[in-house]
């Protein structure tokens, strides 16, 4: 048991750190893009969305697998899970995904998620004083047959990935590329 406790504690700490980092990145980009990491953007307002992109999840891949979005655009992602397994749609850099994969592996180990769904009870359990819900703004977990939306405002030209970080899925190729281009009409 001590091992498990410390694991969940470590997880909780890692989780909160990353959640914080996501916000910090978003905030950094918002305030001029002089942060340390690449600017992934920030949660957007659905009403202000410039366009809607439908992403279909299958086992285990996305369609489409390549998107081009202009910096400054707010996109409403409609993410539909056509597969039999639980999938995630997560916006970020490759490095962020790599970190998040470890968290997802821990969540799988703890039974909060299973290959086919979310155990909402376990997900909401209090783990060492830290909430463990999968509630990042840049990510949605979509159970088989379900459709979810994520609205995101892309702030700076960069290269991002959308990814499913359920253990093994990213590695099997369930990810796509996003080229965030310079805003239309911007000089250099």
């Amino acid at each position, binding site marked *: 048991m001590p091992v498990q406790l410390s694991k969940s504690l470590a997880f909780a700490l890692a989780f909160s750190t990353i959640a914080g980092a996501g916000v910090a990145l978003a905030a950094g980009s918002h305030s001029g893009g002089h942060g340390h990491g690449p600017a992934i953007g920030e949660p957007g307002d659905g009403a202000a969305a410039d366009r809607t992109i439908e992403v279909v999840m299958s086992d285990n*891949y996305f369609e489409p697998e390549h998107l081009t979005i202009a910096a400054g655009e707010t996109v409403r992602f409609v993410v539909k899970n056509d597969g039999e397994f639980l999938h995630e749609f997560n916006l970020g850099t490759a490095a962020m995904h790599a970190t998040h994969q470890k968290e997802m592996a821990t969540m799988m180990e703890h039974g909060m998620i299973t290959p086919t769904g979310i155990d909402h009870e376990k997900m909401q359990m209090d783990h060492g004083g830290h909430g463990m819900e999968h509630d990042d703004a840049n990510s949605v977990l979509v159970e088989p047959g379900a459709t979810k939306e994520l609205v995101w405002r892309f702030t700076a030209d960069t290269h991002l990935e959308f990814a499913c970080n359920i253990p*093994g899925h990213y590695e099997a*190729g369930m990810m796509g590329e996003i080229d965030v281009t310079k805003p239309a009409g911007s000089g250099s």
Partner: protein
Amino acid sequence: MKTWLNARNSRAARNTRAAFAAVGVVTALLGVPPALAGTYDLTIGETTINVSGSDRTALAINGTVPGPTLRFKEGEDLVINVTNTLDEDTSIHWHGLIVPTSQDGVPGLSFDGIKPGTTHTYRFPAQQSGTYWFHSHSGLQEQSGVYGSIVIEPQGREPFRYDREYVVVLSDWHDTKPEKILANLKKQSDYYNYNQRTLLSLFDEAEEKGFDAALADRLDWGGMRMTPTDIADISGYTFLVNGKNPEQNWTGLFAPGERVRLRFINAAAMTYFDVRIPGLEMTVVQADGNNVQPVKVDEFRIAVAETYDVIVRPMEDQAYTLVAEPLERGGLARGTLAPRDGMTAEVPGLRPRPLLTMADMSHGDMEGMDHAAMGHSMPAAEAPGAVEPPMSGMDHAAMGHGTMPQADGPPAQQPMSGMDHAAMGHAMPPASADADPFYAPGSGLTPKAANGGKFLSYADLKAQRPLYEVREPTREIEIRLTGNMERYFWSINDKKYSEAEPIRLTYGERVRFKFVNETMMTHPMHLHGMWTILDNGNGKWNPVKHVVSIAPGTTVLAEVEVDAPGRWAFHCHLMYHMATGMFREVIVEGGPQAAALN
């Protein structure tokens, strides 16, 4: 014609017939899409190879060892001409392919074999996709080089993607002809064991655990007339990756960031390999040709005749060593993944040779019976609380037929006792790296990843998409894996093939095989013609395989949907075990093709 070097872009290949032409074996494409049909020519003959430092005569397919990679397309009607230029009979068995019984290539069961100087034509549809292989099923020819790989492209999109792929055929080569090896084992079963405990090693053992304990351990083993060093029957192998020895260093190229699919095939006659690529995580996506839910591992053990497909994604501009270390650590198979030809990475040293423990001697039960005192292997089911107590004694006696007693009711409804142990797969994955439920607790063979990370367990294998509906087995058949180590012959339920009646199954039933390993060797059991659903506790996601490996001291359950009429081979895929008796004919009676059987 090193077809395995023909790395190619999978996406490009997916939509073009050109990929087939790129593979040297394809000699003619008679059919034009959409009516897929391909004709392939294979010639089995002698060739000279040198992988051990001296020239030796090997038996080759189309002149190479291993033979070519056959690339088929799911749904393709295959016509394969096999010409025999040897002066003895030969045959080709399509390992893992679901084919009609007449096309399965087992002399004496499917057909008469391919006579010298003749050409035999196989015809069957490719009704599946994935990584498979093919090999001679005649005598001991497989050990001499008669094996090759099969890749079947699926019709639909695969549940994973990759930019490049390589077939990685692992095998073992011996300079001594296989018939001579077997004759040597018959004369002296430890002929090839040069890793025995000695007087000198007794001092080491005494230093480790005290003289009394070391001596007591020796006496325990001596009492059974067994040795803990008996990991492999044969030493002196050279281990090969795609036919190349470690110095010849098979190399697969990649561009950093690419996903590379490695299709591992264990075509060795006798060798289990522990496979790793230091510096890279591997994501296992397919086992025995069937997709599995992706699982990330640092290392995996591949039983003889199994296949595993993994995806690796080397990000750095550096070489990585592909290490396939035989279970008995008698050398290694080595290859390299590199951004450019000629690059190499460090080759790790061999890890210590494992030693068997008393757990490996527990004969598939958990009773801790004193086998030394019994002097003879006792069927596990005779233990108290066994699943079918009234039957097992009968079975042990000479009943004169090889079929197993039928359980009166659904076996699952009967109380499970302690002897139906961990290997029966409780749904939980192993709690730690050294607790694989498919090894006897405390087994000396339990694998550990070299980097302390994740080692693939059978318990991790979950079908990506179940092939069969879940249903209760209609009956259970006990398959006790038995043998006589001292005289070197192997058997099932204490009978060699030549002594046993076939196992008779009825078309449409679902049979549960209960494998009880009463020997101290690990046996990769292979059923022809039908899939084997490994019961690893994952319910509807239980993986579908063509080889199920059963470690010493364990009991493993597997189910078979009996959906293929005819006469099929069922055997241990360790070649010398198969050849000396660990083999059964399985006859599936009834069904749509029953009339065609005779």
